[in-house]
């Protein structure tokens, strides 16, 4: 088990290396650079050119890449042109916000998906099931950014139940309990908006798994043993149906870390997504490349996490 995890982590190194080249080249392929349009147009173009030369922006890509990657492996992702601070420090602040938002979203997603999926699957083709399936179709059809805007307007502005921006109330001291509560309070509305939409896939998946599982022969065996309906569901159907969902946990989590971009912008939530969009607009390359690299690494770790979880819950899959 540990061997395989270490091996998978070692395989990650060339993957991340390849990814970093791709990310770097694509970032460079964007028209313009950090100096475009950012400076006073009255400055002598020759001075700007000199600045470019001094910052190394005119070097061939492989030299620029080498400079960047050799620093990056030492933990120095460079300076943000826009924020005038080290990228690691900048991302560090935002990273935890996004990770926490993703985790809260994930908890809410499963809190909604599991009961709804079970009701819908166990009592399929009843009115309850039709209602839940109806909701999932609406969820599939509704774009997340519209729902998020609607939630923000309704619960943030109209009812004023939730804060409409930021990640914590001003004046709270980090480390206190009320600071934590305030963080959670700020996360709740964006997390709920995402959860209400992303949960529908899991609801349908679970419903289909349960309906499929109900017709399996081993369920007949369980009934023939004299097991009651609730035992049949809890012991035999549910565990088997939850397997694929447990296996998707890793992907789900990393998907969320990359998927909160729009919602963070809408709720002015200071996470990585908001930073990412902003940095692309102003061509803050160091930040963009660092973030894409981070998303890439998160995806690779997510798939590793999924493999590990699956091997724990499903005896048929043992990684050796």
């Amino acid at each position, binding site marked *: 088990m540990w061997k395989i995890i270490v091996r998978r982590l070692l395989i990650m190194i060339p993957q991340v290396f390849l990814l970093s080249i791709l990310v770097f080249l694509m970032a460079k392929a964007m028209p313009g650079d950090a100096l475009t349009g950012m400076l006073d147009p009255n400055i002598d173009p020759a001075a700007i050119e000199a600045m470019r030369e001094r910052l190394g922006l005119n070097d061939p890509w492989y030299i620029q890449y080498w400079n960047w990657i050799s620093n990056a492996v030492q933990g120095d992702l460079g300076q943000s042109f826009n924020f005038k601070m080290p990228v690691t420090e900048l991302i560090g602040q935002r990273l935890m916000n996004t990770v926490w938002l993703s985790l809260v979203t994930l908890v809410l997603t499963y809190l909604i998906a599991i009961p709804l999926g079970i009701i819908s699957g166990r009592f399929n083709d009843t009115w309850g099931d039709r209602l839940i399936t109806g909701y999932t179709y609406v969820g599939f059809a509704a774009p997340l950014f519209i729902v998020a805007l609607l939630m923000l307007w309704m619960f943030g502005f109209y009812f004023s139940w939730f804060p409409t921006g930021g990640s914590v109330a001003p004046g709270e001291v980090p480390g206190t309990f009320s600071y934590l509560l305030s963080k959670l309070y700020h996360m709740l509305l964006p997390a709920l908006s995402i959860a209400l939409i992303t949960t529908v896939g899991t609801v349908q998946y679970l419903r289909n798994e349960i309906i499929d599982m109900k017709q399996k*022969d081993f369920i007949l065996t369980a009934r*023939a043993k004299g097991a009651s309906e609730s035992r049949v569901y809890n012991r035999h159907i549910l565990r088997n149906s939850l397997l694929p969902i447990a296996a998707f946990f890793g992907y789900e989590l990393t998907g969320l870390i990359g998927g909160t971009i729009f919602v963070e912008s809408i709720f002015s939530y200071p996470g990585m997504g908001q930073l990412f969009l902003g940095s692309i607009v102003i061509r803050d390359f160091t930040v963009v490349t660092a973030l894409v690299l981070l998303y890439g690494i998160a995806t690779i770790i997510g798939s590793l996490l999924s493999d590990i979880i699956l091997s724990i819950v499903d005896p048929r899959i043992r990684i050796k």
Partner: protein
Amino acid sequence: MTRIPFLKNPGVRVMNLSEDLLQIENLTTSFKIAGQYYAAVDDVTLTVKKNEILAIVGESGSGKSALAFSIMGLHTKARIEGKVNYKGQDIVQMSPGMLNKVRGKEMSMIFQDPLAALNPLMIIGSQIEEVLLLHDTTLSKKQRKEKVLDLLAKVGIPRPEHTYHQYPYELSGGMRQRVIIAIAIANGPQLLLADEPTTALDVTIQLQILELLRKLKNDMRAGIILITHDLGVVSEMADRVAVMYAGQIVEIADIYTLTSNPQHPYTRSLFNSIPTVKEVKSRLHVIQGIVPSLKNLPRTGCRFAARTPWIDASAHEDNPQLHEIAPGHFVRCTCYKHFHFPESAEEAGTDGIA
């Protein structure tokens, strides 16, 4: 006119006129198709005696499994009419709670496909322990485990202690079927329903499983309903045979009568379809056509008539009944008196597809 070359030492099985274990009276099981109910088991009356193997034979779709599922109360979306009397209680009318007390203890079932009949996420030990736990809460954990190991040894699993901790995917089909049999016999049931227990197994394993079933029956003195479409299995195992066609019983007799003197055209056709090495036939006899689908079953007249078109319509009864032509030998419809196998000219060109 014995056509069964594989009937071995028939003297071993002793007919005993023991008491009835299960009485099925006018059982009709219907399924809903497009808003209407269609009977898959149509007015079946049968009895199973103690320490007897009753075989139910028929082609696919003749209602054998539907009958077994009705006896176990395993249908979830069927309309069941009639009576299934077991020890003075009617299983059809039983509440789910009562039914769960009977299933797995008094009667249990062995399924067709051992590869699918075990929970893939539970070790073998827990799957057998579950049926013990459900019917006897007084056993301690240790006692239960011991009993499971005994059972595994009883069904011929070579290393019970090792298999106890294995998952189903680690066992072969034959081993899994043994585990399923262990689950079925765990509480010493009076009635065992075996729904094509050897269909999914290869021939050498089939024989072992059948031997095991017979041995267990003799140990437990239980009644067994053996559902199969394999006439070889029937003549090896059964004491009595009920032949089913299109949801109805068309002939019942003890095994000797049925194999030596089959009467109903369907029974005769089934026996005649077995390839033999004694007679050299240029082509194998096949029964023309297939069992009609549930929706398209003829509900009046002789249901087998459509597959014997060379027999005159006047030979059939309008409303075919079971006639007792000899003690314990029942045949449905009067067409058996006029039945003959077709001349090759009559059969030619059909290839068994009506």
